[in-house]
């Protein structure tokens, strides 16, 4: 709630939210499924896939002393569960626990209403200056409830890698590219997929990195180049999915697209906040100015993410040293 200016008093103190317990159809989820530092719950932990309802117990801590002295009345604290892909936003009221002073409640999540990952946050609402229902505060970062994750990890933006024969394999659309060592496919709706071409002899052996230091360094270099291509593809896929909000301003996407943009935009358009950078990027795409320069910056940012400079240096050292010429 810090960046926006509200025309009425809002909470300055922090609101924190924590998931304390999760039950899937009444059976407790292992504690390993709840990642407190990652703020993530892995709902597919231990292969439990057939559940219908998750009951998520949460606890929120509000700046109580500030509330006690403040101009707010009829204060309500609610948990908001949402997933854009299924147009779902459900709101659950929390109740204040007299003993601990925290707000607690159980959020019920129906599996059929969700697709991949839902966000969970807390919102504080009160009557201010005679107007009910004002938003006066909330948790700053969402918890992520991941339906398909087996372990609570936040940044799962690594795409799937498929080893396939481009020339004689099952995917006829890869045939025209039979000489390409790899192809990053972003045309799908979700994460990009990297196809490695088994028709290129020795490629998969090379990438497995078996052998001496030179082979290892070459594998790492090729891997970094592929990774750099992937970052670039993901960046463009993410930017391509930026939608406009009610006022026509580009809106930050969610999920892996958000994390890709958040990590790469500072290198693509330095000096701008990610949300400003999106506006700038979209404007340049539409109007065309500075577009070519931006492409180079995207490549640069992707190479940085993929540690291409480091792997290149390592590869050069590893291939030069055995000759023993500089000693």
């Amino acid at each position: 709630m810090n960046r926006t200016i509200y025309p009425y008093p809002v909470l300055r103190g922090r609101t924190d939210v924590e998931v304390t317990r999760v039950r899937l159809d009444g059976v407790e989820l292992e504690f390993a499924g709840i990642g407190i530092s990652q703020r993530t719950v892995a709902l597919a932990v231990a292969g439990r896939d057939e559940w219908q309802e998750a009951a998520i117990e949460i606890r929120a801590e509000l700046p109580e002393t500030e509330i006690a002295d403040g101009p707010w009345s009829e204060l309500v604290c609610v948990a908001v569960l949402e997933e854009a892909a299924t147009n779902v936003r459900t709101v659950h009221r929390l109740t204040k626990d007299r003993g601990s002073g925290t707000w607690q409640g159980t959020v019920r999540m129906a599996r059929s209403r969700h697709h991949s990952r839902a966000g969970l946050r807390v919102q504080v609402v009160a009557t201010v200056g005679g107007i009910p229902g004002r938003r006066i505060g909330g948790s700053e970062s969402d918890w992520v409830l991941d339906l398909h994750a087996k372990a609570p990890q936040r940044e799962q933006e690594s795409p799937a890698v498929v080893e396939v024969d481009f020339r004689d394999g099952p995917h006829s659309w890869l045939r025209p590219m039979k000489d390409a060592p790899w192809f990053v496919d972003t045309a799908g709706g979700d994460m990009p997929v990297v196809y490695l071409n088994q028709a290129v002899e020795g490629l998969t052996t090379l990438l497995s990195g078996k052998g001496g230091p030179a082979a290892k360094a070459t594998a790492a270099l090729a891997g970094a180049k592929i990774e750099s291509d992937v970052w670039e593809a993901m960046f463009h896929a993410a930017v391509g999915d930026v939608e406009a909000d009610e006022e026509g301003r580009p809106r930050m996407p969610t999920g892996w697209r958000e994390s890709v943009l958040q990590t790469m935009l500072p290198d693509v358009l330095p000096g701008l906040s990610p949300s400003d950078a999106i506006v700038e990027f979209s404007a340049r795409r539409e109007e065309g100015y500075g577009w070519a320069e931006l492409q180079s910056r995207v490549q640069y940012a992707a190479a940085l993410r993929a540690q291409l400079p480091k792997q290149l240096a390592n590869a050069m050292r590893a291939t030069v040293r055995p000759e023993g010429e500089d000693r």
Partner: protein
Amino acid sequence: MGVATRHLNRAILSGTEHPPQVALLRAAQPIADPSPRWDTGPVRVLLDQAMARYATDRAAADAWLAPRLHATLRLTRGEAADKGLWAYLALVVAPDYVLWRHIPTGTDESRRAAVVQAARFAGANSVQAFARLWWAAEMFRDGADYRPVEVACSNQDVLNTALRLDIMEHRPTAMAVLRVLQQLTAGGAPRPGDQVNSLCRAIGIAGSTLMYETLGPDQLPDERELLLWIDEADSAPPAPWERLPDGPDDGEVPAASVAALTRLFENINEHLGQLRDRRGVATGV
């Protein structure tokens, strides 16, 4: 999805060529569930009927088709979020319908060859030819009652913008917006669609400081009823053509919440009206 977009070229988008059925079928992921609810036959029948009924006014087909498509293609929201499903319908089952409904007509476009936007075949659920109707029905139905869906889908402005707005994810808000739209239409307001669009924008802006969910709370849908209804797809008769089908009886939108939000939105709309009038006077229009 990937395969779908790869096959969308100009010839297909303009209707001069059919999508390559064999290649698409080979690339499509089969659905493991053997239930007859995945049978596309009944959907095909519905689409043929829609084209026959609305041959002269294709936009009007949306309000007829949306509830019937929803009642025929019984899905959970999780299943309907899969864009591949909708791309399959558009490219394999009924490319002719997508062309019929969305190929541009009129003077501006006739200079260039008319093509359908690729996203009508494979794209966001607020744009894709069938996903937009299914989701409109899902978000505007009042439990088993599809009447609000007809109201929402008979106004292209509502149908085109509403699915993109987060505020519509709250059922009482969606119902209240439709109430205001109905009042405007009944009162003979000029271009009610435009007015509703600016109202939606204003509601969205006010929603950054007001939480409609606490002003007009909703109830969680009855999950068991919904899943039961989906299971009944196997034995249910086809959706009726002349009267509205019944949706899943998973809970009505609380009337008190809709009433409270309707009052609030009427107020907002009145303010907008005053702003419009003032602007009109200032520019001498």
